């Protein structure tokens, strides 16, 4: 599978996702240390194996597989498939200096670099413009932050 290319690092806080399935919404908080809580419940720990497989440890450790297509998140776990829509994502709860990383959605060529190390960026600013499949794709900052050297 095409790995996404990490293009740089940004200072971002903990991420909160709101995922929707049918008429239910779930709040998922993702820490930068691989911990996850769902609707404020008990903590799970996650690791990506790099090929779609995700090891999730809540009680026992289990394998899940996930894939994203647009706003849809596909997940396979325990013989069942779940589709979620991302209702909201990327809200920084802690505006502190935790490090995350930012990745391109697919292998692509860099057309323009819009920022320089040290620049202060705001959520939504274009950082880099990529070209793939004959289209220019801006990669935007998911949160306010400072471009690392």
């Amino acid at each position, binding site marked *: *599978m*095409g*790995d*996404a290319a990490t293009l740089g690092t940004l200072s971002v806080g903990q*991420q909160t*996702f709101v*995922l929707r*399935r049918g008429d*239910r919404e*779930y709040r*998922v908080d*993702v820490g930068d240390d*691989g911990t*996850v809580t*769902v609707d404020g*419940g*008990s903590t*799970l720990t*996650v690791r*990506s194996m790099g090929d*779609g497989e*995700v090891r*999730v440890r*809540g009680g026992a450790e*289990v394998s*899940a*597989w*996930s*894939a*994203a*297509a647009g706003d849809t*998140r*596909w*997940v*396979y*776990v*325990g*013989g*069942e*498939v*779940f*589709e*979620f829509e991302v209702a909201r994502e990327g809200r920084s709860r802690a505006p502190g200096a935790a490090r995350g990383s930012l*990745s391109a*959605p*697919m*292998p*692509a*060529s860099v057309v323009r670099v819009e920022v320089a190390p040290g620049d202060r960026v705001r959520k939504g600013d274009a950082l880099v413009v990529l070209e*793939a*499949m004959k289209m220019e794709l801006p990669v935007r900052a998911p949160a306010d932050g400072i471009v690392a050297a």
Partner: protein
Amino acid sequence: MTFRRVLVANRGEIAVRIIRACRESGIESVAVFSDADADAPHVYAADRSVRIGPASPAESYLSISAVIGAARSAGADAVHPGYGFLSENPAFARACEAAGCTFIGPPGDVIERMGSKIAARELMVSAGVPVVPGVTPGDQSDTGIAAAVVQVGYPALVKASAGGGGKGMRVLRDEQAGRELIPAARREAVTAFGDGTLYVERLVDQPRHVEIQVFCDNHGDAVHLFERECSIQRRHQKVIEESPSPGLTPKLRQAMGAAAVAAAQVAGYRNAGTIEFLLEGTGDAASFYFLEMNTRLQVEHPVTEAVTGVDLVQAQLVVAAGGALPWSQEHLTQRGHAIELRVYAEDPATGFLPQAGPLLVYREPQGPGIRIDSGVREGGVIPVDYDPLLAKLTVTAESRPAAINRAIAALRAFVVLGIRTNIPFLGHVLDHPDFRAGRLHTGFIDQHLARLLATPDPPDEALAAAATGRPSVRAPSVAGSPAAGDPWATLRRWGR
């Protein structure tokens, strides 16, 4: 005598299956492909490949002239039609022979005769094979059909004489229903088969669909290879098949096998074929009725291969080339238990609607007693143009309970994301108490639909994976080797 080069006039898993059999038999294989399939697994599997047209089946896999043209240009001396597409088209069988290519299947006139429900039924009656009480009304008007329905009795089935696969089929439970459903059945028959002739028969309630694999050579020998239980169907199409049938006694198995061989022989059959029966009742007292004959390799042939230990496709190649049947009836054995699960890109929750789209993640299970026949790969796209069968998972074990457990474990290791499939649904069927108990009938899925569709709430693990998993979008490759020129950026496909 053996073939030198076989053209495989099909796509997907069955084309891959046939190409493998050719390779293992020392025969060159030629794949054909439409524009939608230029990089499909069956094309890569073959020794060579020929483009036969655009994605539209009518202009490619269903085009006799395109396929025959490919066979000529590739210098093939035989054509394997697989199933579906042109496999039961007598004109195609004749066109192959006219082009100097052996058609790997029965003669065109046998296909034609068995393709007509009326002619096939008459032939079966003449051979003493039991048939469902039914009639093809001489008066094909609405009134004539309605009268025939009264004659066979309610509930009755009205269906296209020329057809198969459930098209043009209607169940009439009272006189009222007939007024609307008889014309509807006729219209659908005309649309699907170009022939509005209708056939009326008594509906066997809660029947089992049990079929017998037969095989005949050119030297007068014929054998059967036991039964396949195919009662688990949705939209009148099989999704789970197994052998042995949990509902067959040894005595009934022997009677059905003998009837199937008699049916094949009276039809003048050659090569691999299947006699489909409806089974009514249980135990030695159960009745079986001839339903139809499929004059080709079946989708579900791996189930028979698993329990008998034979290779049906390699045998097809031998017998079509004039060789003798590789087995005698008394040496064929049925051992263990096999279950095939058809993995479709379809959405069970919306009436099993076929799905098209990208296979973002596609991981097949493997291990002891697991066989996968597939014609797709991760990163590929399932086109809208064809049957949405992704793969067949066939498990074999010592007993039916062991096979069910193995199948459930294998399904749980079959990961497909990016497109809806029936994988979880199949797991729910296998785990249903009635399935485990062998209480099968063709209405099983409809009867238990609500329970089979029930999906648990997502566990926290699913939400954690959804929020943290990485995108799996597969883009055209644009990376070259490090510090090297990158031909891939500019060359993704060449003209063929």
